[in-house]
Every structure is written in structure tokens, then in C-alpha cells.
């Protein structure tokens, strides 16, 4: 006769699935960050023009919206994630080159890299160790994202440096909120696909890095 308690077995299976999701997501995130950095290096070395950056962004967003949801549960999803992060890395090349050509540009890029890592590790560690549920932030973060996008659209026409800095600061805070929200979804349920989680966390890191570059570049000026 089996002595197993179905409730205990169910809970341990759920815990196992959560731990596997977290492990797979962070492993995949590390691989995609290295891959993306390599693609950014290639773009910098080839000195690709700015329009390539925009085309890469369009391509990666199309993959995120139309291809990833259909392939996330198959092996093709892996290729899609590498294509997305590779394109985004390629698009980052001209931006990094621009900052590297500024006076003290290497310090700006290295500080942005270190700062992004510190923010990501601190917030992820907090959400993972406390296991707090940040699911209540979802609506607030999405509305914040829409407000920021509308302000960015306006600033394309008005070119206000102060607004550009304020938007970069707002993006850093929003993406920090998304790190808490996404990590909490992995720990407390609400997310079950490590490829989707990898892309979500990758986008958070990417946006924090680009916004930090903008803020640090402006403060050096």
C-alpha cells in the first residue's frame, strides 16, 4: 500500500518544477547575454550604421510578438530566443560605439554594464530570497510603459534633453519593477515557460543598460 500523501507529493512536484524553471531561465539568460554581447562586438567591429540598429529592433520585436508565442513550447523556441537576442545585440553595437567615441567613453560603458548587473542581481536576489508576490504590480507597470512610450514619441519631435534624461530614469525604474514582477512570477506561479521568462528578463536588462548609458553619457557631458 502506498504511504505517500497526495498533497505533499503535489507540493514537492510543484516546488521541483519551480526550481527547474528558475534554473533553466537563468542558464538560458546567461547564454543569451554572452551571445548578445558577442553580436554587439561584431556590430562594433564592423562599424554597422545606425539604420541597421533600427532594422534589428523591428526584427526582434516581430519575433517576440509573432514567432516566440508560437514556438515557445518547441525546440524552435530556442532558435527564436537566440535570434531575438542576437538581433538586439547587433542593434546595440552602434549605440555602444557612439558612447565609446566620447571622452571617457570606456568608463561610461563599463559603469553602465556594472550598474545594470548590480541592479539586476540585487532585485532578483530580493525577489528570490523573500519569495514575495509582486503580481499586483502588473497593471501599474504596463500603464507606466505606455505613458513612457507616449512621452518618447513626443520627445522625437521636441528634442528636450531634460525630458530624455527623465525618460531614461523612468525606464530604469519601470524595468526594475518588471524584474521584481517577472522574478516573482517564476517563484510564485504565473509563468511556466523558461524561454518566455528569459526574453522578459533579457528585455529588462537590455533597457536598463541602454537607459543607464544615456544617463551616464549625459552626466559626463
Amino acid at each position, binding site marked *: 500500500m502506498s504511504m505517500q500523501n497526495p498533497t505533499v507529493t503535489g507540493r514537492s512536484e510543484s516546488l521541483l518544477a519551480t526550481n527547474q524553471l528558475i534554473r533553466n531561465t537563468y542558464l538560458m539568460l546567461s547564454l543569451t547575454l554572452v551571445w548578445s554581447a558577442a553580436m554587439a562586438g561584431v556590430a562594433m567591429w564592423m562599424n554597422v550604421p545606425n539604420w541597421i540598429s533600427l532594422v534589428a529592433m523591428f526584427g526582434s520585436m516581430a519575433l517576440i510578438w509573432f514567432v516566440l508565442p508560437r514556438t515557445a513550447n518547441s525546440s524552435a523556441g530556442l532558435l527564436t530566443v537566440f535570434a531575438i537576442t542576437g538581433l538586439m545585440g547587433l542593434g546595440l553595437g552602434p549605440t555602444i560605439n557612439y558612447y565609446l567615441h566620447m571622452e571617457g567613453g570606456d568608463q561610461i560603458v563599463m559603469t553602465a554594464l556594472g550598474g545594470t548587473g548590480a541592479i539586476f542581481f540585487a532585485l532578483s536576489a530580493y525577489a528570490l530570497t523573500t519569495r514575495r508576490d509582486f503580481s499586483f504590480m502588473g497593471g501599474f507597470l504596463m500603464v507606466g510603459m505606455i505613458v513612457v512610450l507616449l512621452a518618447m514619441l513626443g520627445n*522625437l519631435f521636441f528634442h528636450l534633453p531634460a525630458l530624455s534624461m527623465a525618460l531614461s530614469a523612468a525606464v530604469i*525604474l519601470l524595468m526594475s519593477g518588471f524584474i*521584481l514582477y517577472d522574478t516573482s512570477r517564476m517563484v510564485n506561479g504565473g509563468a511556466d515557460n523558461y524561454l518566455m521568462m528569459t526574453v522578459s528578463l533579457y528585455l529588462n536588462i537590455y533597457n536598463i543598460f541602454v537607459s543607464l548609458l544615456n544617463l*551616464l553619457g549625459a552626466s559626463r557631458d
Partner: protein
Amino acid sequence: MDWMKIMSAIFIVVMLVFLWPRAGQMLRESRKGSSSEWLVVVLLLLGVAGFVAFLMHGMSAKPI
């Protein structure tokens, strides 16, 4: 206005079109956070803001 700006504007508009329904859905389906939960978020984000301000100060203070 050069075509890069036009393309950037199109990119942002496309993002808005895709995010708008998602935002509405998340607003409806998200649970309400208590004031203590929001306080934790505010403190964490203040920590991030302070850290970024520290990095910016360090960057502007460096001798050229």
C-alpha cells in the same frame, strides 16, 4: 525630419498598438496590492534611484 525619426516613431506606435490591449487586460486582472506591499516596492525603487544617482555623480565628478 529624417527617415530614421519617422521609422522610430512608427516603431513606438506599433509597440503602443500591441501593448495597449495587454495593459487593459493586466489592469483588470491584477490583484490590488496592500499599502505595505506598495511601501516595499517604493523603498526598493528608491534604492535603485539612489544607486543610479550615485553612479551619475561619480561619472560627472571624474577628472577629464
